[in-house]
């Protein structure tokens, strides 16, 4: 899922300075699960903003609403009236949600209340870790299901680098070295031979470096 983090209240006050009526809009999907932008966070952030804006000298009038999915027009429709009657929207959706709202309402200021961080999973209670950078050309089958592009700080395809010691990554010493995990996993499933081959340079064009990515399914277009 998409994992995001809340911006701080001082940051949000800076962003919303000068606004009068703001809709704080939550999203019921990924960011609800990662405790960043669901109904509960909408309520907490709204209360905090009411107090903080008063202290900052521009009392915000805040309306709260959470829709099922901000990245989908069908659901955005359900926020239409609330969006119309406010001066601006503070979206607690991911980056896709914020932009979906902004595209739908060209005349309305839409601000991001979250920092969208990564595609990841819940590792343990209240701890999320990144698993995928969405590089557009998956190589997981080569590495025992552990992604060296996401989980190695140097994105090495022919790792490990010389810095790992006692299974730890030199860049993030509290995290295991991805290459140590790949090695153990491939050993465990009897596929160590995969690591003997030299993997060629990656085509980064399938990733963000090729410009905006668009997927068109001709077979599904009418």
């Amino acid at each position, binding site marked *: 899922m998409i994992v995001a983090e809340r911006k701080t209240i001082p940051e949000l006050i800076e962003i919303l300075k000068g606004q009068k009526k703001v809709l704080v809009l939550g999203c019921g999907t990924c960011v609800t699960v990662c405790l960043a932008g669901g109904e509960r966070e909408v309520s907490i952030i709204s209360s905090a903003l009411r107090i903080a804006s008063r202290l900052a000298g521009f009392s915000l009038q805040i309306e709260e609403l959470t829709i099922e999915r901000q990245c989908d027009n069908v659901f955005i429709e359900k926020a239409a009236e609330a969006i119309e009657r406010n001066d601006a929207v503070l979206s607690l959706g991911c980056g896709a949600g914020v932009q979906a709202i902004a595209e739908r309402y060209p005349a309305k200021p839409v601000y991001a209340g979250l920092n969208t961080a990564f595609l990841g999973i819940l590792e343990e209670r209240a701890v999320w870790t990144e698993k995928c950078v969405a590089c557009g050309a998956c190589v997981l089958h080569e590495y025992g299901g552990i992604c060296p592009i996401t989980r190695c700080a140097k*994105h*090495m395809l022919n790792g*490990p680098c010389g810095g790992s010691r006692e299974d730890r990554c*030199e*860049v993030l010493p509290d995290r295991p070295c991805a*290459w140590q995990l790949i090695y153990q996993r491939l050993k465990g499933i009897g596929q160590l031979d995969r690591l003997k081959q030299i993997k060629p340079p990656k085509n980064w064009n399938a990733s963000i470096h090729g410009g905006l990515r668009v997927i068109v399914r001709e077979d599904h277009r009418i």
Partner: protein
Amino acid sequence: MTSDSRLEKILSRGDFAVTSECGPPRGADPEVIQKKGALIKDSVDAINVTDNQTSVVRMSSFSSCVILKQMGINPVLQMVTRDRNRIAIQSDILGAAALGINNILCLSGDHQKFGDHGKAKNVYDLDSIHLIQTVKQMRDEGKFLGGDDIKGKPRFFIGAAANPFADPFEFRVVRLAKKVAAGAQFIQTQCIYNLDRFKQWMQLVRDRGLHEKVHILGGVTPMKSLGMANYMKKMVPGMDVPDNLIARLKGVPKEKQADEGIKISVETIQQLREIKGVHGVHIMAIEWEEMVPGITQEAGLLPRPKVE
């Protein structure tokens, strides 16, 4: 010969090679690198110039190599994949060759987190093994990575690094084999303090016959003090400093620790010379270049052989 490198000539005729390194200055003054070069020029066969080591911005390895070259030194251009994509890398390879640089050490580089620009974006378009392949392809096939022909092939003696002390230990030799298969002709290892572990690794290297395909130069870094030894042990990733070495430095008065550090290095070099498959040493006297002549003298490595 794949290049005009003095280092390649010395290694291919079977002489025990000595290389060292200079860290470029954090400024534009060429005299810093000239002074360091002059200090060690006659004690070694080639001098590496580090490429923004530990991700701290310094004068480029490329230009420092040119300065050394002008002094009659055979420089080794260290190049990391952290800061350049495949376009910049190939361009720099051509430029370096045009200026008479003929050794290259292919590295991934220290992560920017360790340096003075922690907010920088790293590149890592290629990894170190890809870099080796790139230089080899440009030299031997005369082709860019993109497939186009090169007019005027760059002739390089290709080097790579190996760390016998990092984990997973049993995979380290497999990785060395990959570097050799990619085109590495010489290897400079991480600093060796744990000789037992290094010998184990060399045994694995010989078991695979890699010592006959690549020249291995053992890395040696003299300890200036007990403080430095403790720092290397605890803070430097991928470094294996055994307790008995710490104890040995602890056992001498503070003002004698530097001498003891030099003595340890000389002994290490002597032991490395006895190991089958070790074809040279790479002395990294970090901001202590002035000790290199003494170390090489004591270790019986002088005078350095002449090359036509």
